[in-house]
């Protein structure tokens, strides 16, 4: 007797299993097909313009892009309209505007952005390349429609070594910060960008500064910021900001997970202590309105739940965020030399710091 696992509608044999897999695959394919447009896969009716087909038939670029050979760094884009197309395609298959279907909408936007942000004059370049547009517009020979030449096309002739070394971008880029174009080589703004950018920017500060103004850095690293950057851009949940969403609720967990990171921007003794004192979770006068965030047995004899020493070594900034400055007196009362708390230094600790200076003198009495 054949045995099989009992499914909701009976035994599932090999054929039934294959059938189910096929059904799931079919549903997945149908689902993907239905979502294809949503995912950005294009149907043929909105294909890139067939530049290659026109070029291989010997149609010169200037036939359609009339006047572009005399274009300066301002003026129209010289994109052909339907009237240009019907000069050759005298019996169009559709009466609507040709560019509604032939060519992707992003192309015109891309070219308009280039016109607005770049100092470039075709009239100055065409004689140099002997009126061969393909020297720069390599995309015209490919099936795709990335027609705006990459910056590498510029630097193939213009070495720009001096400008690059001096970060002199203004000779071509009208207003690089205003351009807000992220270079292709700069896709580091992923989910963990806040960690990665520090390493990337360390050697490339001036490269960052070609696009990012001073206020961009200071909006996070500044001590005089008015509010979180995300507050200043209400309604933009895609903005990659530090401390997004409900960070305030989980900031203690974040600090404990990544000890020391907060101090990249914040001084715990000044930044944290202000709020912690307001909320009554900081060290304060005995009997005052405060509540301890620590579990029972946090301090006391070095047995049981007394974990404050180990936790303090792991994340001293968290301690300093409430007990820093004048609050250090609380620690000193037990840990001063000869005190019941014993030495705060780890085994093998050596230092040549002056015992008469802060913070050593808090516990070490020097002189008579």
């Amino acid at each position, binding site marked *: 007797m054949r045995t099989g696992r009992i499914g909701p509608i009976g035994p599932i044999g090999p054929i039934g299993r294959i059938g189910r897999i096929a059904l799931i695959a079919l549903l997945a394919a149908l689902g993907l097909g239905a979502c294809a447009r*949503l*995912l*950005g*896969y294009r149907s043929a009716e909105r294909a890139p313009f067939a530049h290659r087909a026109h070029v291989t038939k010997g149609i010169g670029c200037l036939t359609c892009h009339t006047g572009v050979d005399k274009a300066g760094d301002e003026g129209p884009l010289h994109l052909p309209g339907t009237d240009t197309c019907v000069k050759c395609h005298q019996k169009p298959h559709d009466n609507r505007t040709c560019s509604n279907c032939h060519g992707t909408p992003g192309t015109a936007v891309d070219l308009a952005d280039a016109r607005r942000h770049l100092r470039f004059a075709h009239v100055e370049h065409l004689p140099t390349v002997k009126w061969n547009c393909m020297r720069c517009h390599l995309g015209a020979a490919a099936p795709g429609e990335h027609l705006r030449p990459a910056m590498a096309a510029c630097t193939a002739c213009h070495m720009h070594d*001096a400008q*690059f070394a*001096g970060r*002199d971008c203004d000779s071509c880029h009208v207003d690089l910060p205003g351009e807000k174009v992220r270079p292709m080589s700069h*896709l580091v703004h*992923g989910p963990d960008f806040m*960690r*990665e950018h*520090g*390493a990337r920017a*360390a*050697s*490339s*500060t*001036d*490269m960052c500064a070609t696009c990012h103004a*001073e*206020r961009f*850095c*200071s909006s996070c690293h500044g*001590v*005089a910021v*008015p*509010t979180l950057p995300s*507050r200043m851009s209400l*309604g*933009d*949940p895609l903005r990659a900001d530090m401390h*997004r969403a*409900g960070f305030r*609720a*989980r900031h203690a967990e974040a600090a*404990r*997970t990544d*000890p*020391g990171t907060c101090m*990249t*921007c914040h001084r715990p*003794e*000044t*930044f944290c202590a202000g709020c912690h004192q307001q*909320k009554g979770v900081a060290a304060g006068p005995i009997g005052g309105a405060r509540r301890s965030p620590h579990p029972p047995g946090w301090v006391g004899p070095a047995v049981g739940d007394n974990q404050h020493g180990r936790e303090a070594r*792991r*994340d*001293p*900034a968290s301690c*300093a965020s409430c007990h820093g400055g004048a609050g250090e007196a609380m620690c*000193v009362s037990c840990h001063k030399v000869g005190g019941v708390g014993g030495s*705060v*230094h780890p085994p093998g*600790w*050596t*230092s040549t*710091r002056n015992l008469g200076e*802060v*913070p050593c003198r808090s516990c070490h009495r020097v002189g008579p």
Partner: protein
Amino acid sequence: MRRRLTGLGTALLLALAARPAAAQWRLRGDVLAGVAPPVGLVVLEADGRASSWLTAEAVVWTGATRADASVDSDALGVRVGGGDGVGNDDIVGDVQVITLHMRAPSGRAEARVGRFIAAIGALPPLHLDGAAAVARQGRFRVEGFAGIPAVPRLGAAAFDWTAGGRVARRFGKEGALGLAYYQRRGVGRLEDEEVGVDAAWPGPVDVAARAALDLQDPIGLSDAHLSAAARSGPLRVEVFVTSRSPSRRLPATSLFSVLGDVPAHRAGVSARMRAAPRLDVDLLASLRAQDGEPGAEVAVRALLRLDDRGDGAVGLELRRDMLWTGTRAFLRAPMGRLTGSLECEAVIADDPHGRGAVWPWALAALRAAPARHWETALALEASASPEYSSRMQLMASLSRRWDVP
């Protein structure tokens, strides 16, 4: 100090606004207000180019909050009171940035004066009132800065100053190796003294690294970061290692800086893949270790753009951190002249200490541009957190931008 900076800010802003003949001058004003408690904020940003060698930038703000708002006074980030954030003032303000940036036409030298961020090599970024300069010669670059560390709310502290510099050499097009040093003094006492090394080597594998050595006795590594990234078609993968010593990030005058060196280490991989023309998927996985205690972190994020330009988008993020598990969903949807957005987050802490099982947060906003250069937004934020059982806040913002052609 306060009067001097305020006067400088006002003069700079007036100068920026009164240059109709100059090109690329921008001034932007933002007003932000919330109802719980009544808090208002006005931010003015201005930047522009006076000539080919001189640019200026300023961000100044003023805020108002209820004087007796003791718990939620920082609802918009406006901190009440004195420099330590405690007090009873109801009008506050500060200067975030005021800089004049001078640049030699050849690009061989640059200088900044005012209030700015000095981010030099592997050293921690410093917000200071002072000056910085850069000189470039061939493949070499020398930079330095000096000034007074910025104090919130235009405060001042006696005998606080910082100074540092960096020497770097460029390799190839974008490769670089730099050596930096700085020290910072508070009330005349040495608080921080570090030397840093940074390196970048772009190529098929894009490598960047930095390390800072704390020179305070005993000498030791305070912060190090190595990142190597490679891209292949729609996939970008990054491998990273970090090490940070929390006690060395504290000023040497802090009692907590003598507790010993217990560095926190982290190693992991992050990946971004364009799974479909409009769909990006990000992955992050890392291992952590500190004081012999291991931990792990995993995060997945998917972003689906709803149109080719990405004006509309929907995303979902799942994260398992060492101490909490959370999810965040967000949506931005253009609706004619309006743009609606929704952002939700739910966090479950492993050890909530009786502060509630789930910490939810949500913000729904409507944004509109009623006229050219004008932008307005209305938002409702609702949350429950360990600090309070629940809270709801209505916020509104209004922005105006002036461009002088």
